[in-house]
């Protein structure tokens, strides 16, 4: 556990100093800070326009950070030979991989925390919402963190055997497809003209691919007509699904990395 924690904390230290990540974070904070000015351009209510834009900026930039942060992690360690000075110590490969992953998630949590904090402060000062509305807005980034942890697990899994550039396209592609899985499946399942085989295929594909759409909850402020029957159960299931998927990806990553020649 000591080794995993040591590797994780060094990964956080390195991540928060990576200029490219800091630039993305800075742009995100800049965008978040000008969101109030964009409200007037929207036909929707100012509050819902503000919240949906905040969510979009946090989600999009967090995904970018998650991918860029993780695709280079393992290849860089090998290329710079740092991994040798670590693996020749009493550190198993699975500990190294988990340390890197948890470090990435901690760094992500830190960066997303900064974005969320700024958003909440702005929301509070500009809209003076009541506590329930604040809680509604604060809940979403927590689900996004689980979503980004899943995305980081995908990227770190592929980083054990593919080059960073290829990994970038795979991870980005999977995330983009994963964010439209629910509507994609619905369009197949509800269309009477869809052949049964296509419906089965759609079901299979949507079951295998990571479903990121679940993490974009229909916020009652944005979608007053959508009611989640049992919110606690929905959140638990969504978080549980993410953790299960992450665990599977990490186990597969460990198996691949364990046999890899570094």
């Amino acid at each position, binding site marked *: 556990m*000591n*080794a995993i*924690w*040591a*590797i994780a904390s*060094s990964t956080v*230290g*390195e991540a928060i*100093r990576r200029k490219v990540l800091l630039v993305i974070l800075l742009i995100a904070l800049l965008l978040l800070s000008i969101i109030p000015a964009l409200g007037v351009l929207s036909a929707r209510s100012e509050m819902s326009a503000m919240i949906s834009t905040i969510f979009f900026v946090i989600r999009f930039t967090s995904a970018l950070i998650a991918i860029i942060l993780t695709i280079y992690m393992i290849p860089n360690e090998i290329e*710079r*030979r*740092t991994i*040798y*000075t*670590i*693996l*020749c*110590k*009493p*550190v*198993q490969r699975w500990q190294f991989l988990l340390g890197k992953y948890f470090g990435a998630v901690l760094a992500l949590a830190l960066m997303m925390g900064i974005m969320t904090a700024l958003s909440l402060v702005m929301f509070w000062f500009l809209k003076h919402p009541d506590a329930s509305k604040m809680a509604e807005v604060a809940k979403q980034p927590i689900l996004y963190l689980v979503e980004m942890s899943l995305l980081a697990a995908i990227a770190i899994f592929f980083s054990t055997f593919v080059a960073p550039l290829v990994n970038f396209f795979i991870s980005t592609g999977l995330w983009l497809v994963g964010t439209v899985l629910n509507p994609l499946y619905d369009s197949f399942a509800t269309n009477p003209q869809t052949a049964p085989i296509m419906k089965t295929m759609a079901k299979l594909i949507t079951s295998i691919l990571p479903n990121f759409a679940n993490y974009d909850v229909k916020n009652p402020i944005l979608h007053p007509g959508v009611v989640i029957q049992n919110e606690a159960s929905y959140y638990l299931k969504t978080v549980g699904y993410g953790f299960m998927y992450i665990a599977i990806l990490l186990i597969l990553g460990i198996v691949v990395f364990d*046999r890899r*020649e*570094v």
Partner: protein
Amino acid sequence: MAAAIETKKLTKTYRSRQLGKINVVNELDLHVEEGEIFGFLGPNGAGKTTTIKMLLGIIYPTHGEGYVLGREIGDMDVHRVISYLPERPYYYEHMTGFELLKFYDSLFGNHDPDKCQRLLERVNLAGDASKTINQYSKGMQQRVGLAQSLLNDPKLLFLDEPTGGLDPIAHREIRDLILSFRDEGRTVFISSHELSEVELICDRVAIIHKGEIARQGRLTELLKGGRIEITLQGIDEGLARKLATGGTLHNLSDGYMLDMPEEEDVNAVVDTVRSAKGSIVSMVPRKKRLEDLFVETVRAATPGAAPKLAAEGGV
């Protein structure tokens, strides 16, 4: 004496689409005794780093056996008593020298800041402990690397090109540190191209070429067989040729130069020249150097290499 490293037919094979199967390390039999400084030499691509990685359990042998400190390679317990300094390593640049040592120390489950400080003092970096690694020169990075390799008080150190790319002062500092490791009873396994350094500090060496051990043994034994150059004047060519039966004769503008093995009877040559009223201008013993041995070994193991080198103007 017990073996610190022992390999039996250790082999690493890679498969390539273009070249098929390549034995990067081929049936390597290596024997390193405890408490010695062992030089592992070879040209680029000979299989040195691959061998070290196999011994460290970082990559897996295709077949053969290997033992480090009496345990099979890959045994995690051995990792508590060995250490490795890779060639031109990168350390986390955001860390200070002190933080770096603390980080590596924590990988052993330890938290001993005093020890980290002592090790920085030992490698003359105590004054730079609070500087970040990206502020360190190459020599300082190599020294902090040596400090991290001492954190677990290792019995066996693997050093891959420990003096590569360093200035003469840094060279000397690293060399003195390595010699002090032997004085402390540690075994040091050095892979290096710096043959003059190796010659100064190693007890035994192995020369690897194309994945196979071309020569292995004690340096004093391997470097036996130096030569003596005797410059002669005032003798006729017939006598000079007679004297050169055990060596090589070179014509000079005002005499001859006789190049003969050191084990030849030099006194007999001196006596013969003097009785012929000739004179001996100089007598220069030429000790066999590790570089000579290395070149000789690699050429012998590479059919056709010598003529090609000569044609290119090489030695």
